[in-house]
């Protein structure tokens, strides 16, 4: 008697499963898991600056001077809900509930409405564009108005932008808005007009506690790389594989 057809199909299955597993393993070897520092792509030119940004949550006092300075520097509309950067106050209560507040982006300061004895943990989280190297906003733009500069900054060309709002939807960090007068997408430019002249961003300039840090990821001895070495930094929503270059020290799991 020959091999039954049932057994044959089992053999076939095992064979194809082995091929698939081998294939997966091989792909894994070609493109291994990278350290958080390089969870993004590599820079185009390692001899030139490649901007990254770090925020130390342990230092932020929630004064909102960054959000205020950003609006001043970049002519962001003053009314709430238009922000290139803002600060959130997270309060985790003893009963496990998580409260997130950001009145006027933190520009007018924060008040803690939860009684101190009910707080399990509380902290401020400044938010801004993550200047992702595999950014969803760039991928969805139908007219190529959003692009990444060679030094790693995500920008919008407002003469190309048609205001279709795809990118506003695509950004998983909520960092874009439609400018109410220009009717084009607007976002953090990492103060490109400043950093290209050797100055730091407005938010870093005014931060009273040095909770914010702009730096060159290509400068292996620079302050940003040093900070990333010495602290256990994480990026927001790493499972989305956005290649974020905004690193948070002491980021809690609750932060979305």
């Amino acid at each position, binding site marked *: 008697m020959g091999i039954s057809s049932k057994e044959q199909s089992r053999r076939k299955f095992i064979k194809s499963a082995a091929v698939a597993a081998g294939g997966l393993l091989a792909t894994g070897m070609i493109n291994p898991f990278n350290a958080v520092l390089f969870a993004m792509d590599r820079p185009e030119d390692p001899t030139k600056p490649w901007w990254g940004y770090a925020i130390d949550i342990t230092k932020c006092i929630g004064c909102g001077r960054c959000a205020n300075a950003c609006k001043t520097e970049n002519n962001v509309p003053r009314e709430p809900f238009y922000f290139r950067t803002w600060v959130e106050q997270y309060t985790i209560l003893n009963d496990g509930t998580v409260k997130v507040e950001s009145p006027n982006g933190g520009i007018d300061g924060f008040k*803690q409405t939860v009684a101190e004895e009910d707080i399990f943990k509380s902290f401020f989280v400044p938010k801004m564009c993550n200047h992702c190297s595999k950014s969803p906003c760039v991928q969805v733009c139908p007219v190529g108005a959003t692009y990444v500069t060679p030094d790693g900054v995500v920008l919008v060309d407002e003469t190309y932008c048609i205001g279709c709002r795809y990118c506003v939807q695509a950004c998983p960090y909520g960092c874009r808005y439609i400018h109410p007068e220009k009717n084009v997408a607007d976002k953090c430019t990492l103060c490109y007009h400043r950093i290209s002249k050797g100055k730091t961003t407005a938010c870093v300039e*005014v931060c009273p506690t040095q909770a914010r840090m702009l730096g060159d990821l290509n400068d292996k001895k620079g302050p940003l790389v040093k900070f990333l070495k010495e602290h256990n930094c994480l990026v927001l929503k790493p499972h989305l594989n956005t290649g974020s270059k905004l690193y948070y020290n002491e980021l809690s799991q609750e932060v979305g």
Partner: protein
Amino acid sequence: MQYAGKDACAECHDDKTEELSSGMHANLSCETCHGPGMKHYDNPDVTNIIKPSERAFCGICHSFNPTRKDKIAQIDLSEHNVDNKCIECHNPHNPWE
């Protein structure tokens, strides 16, 4: 460009930046409190920086909030020396001198 940076301020006001560097506010940028200074830097006779003196302004950082507890000196604005401005007792360039 609106913010000139501390180095630009120090070009003329080195006495102030020096005073600042000796106290608790040493790591603050001038423009954290005084607002954007580029216009003043370009035209010092025409535009001046702001000099905030209200209690509420100091309170942006220093009013009590358990979220920033242990990170910074804090007071309850509604209790602490209510009738006076902060700067009548504390020199903002060197708050504990």
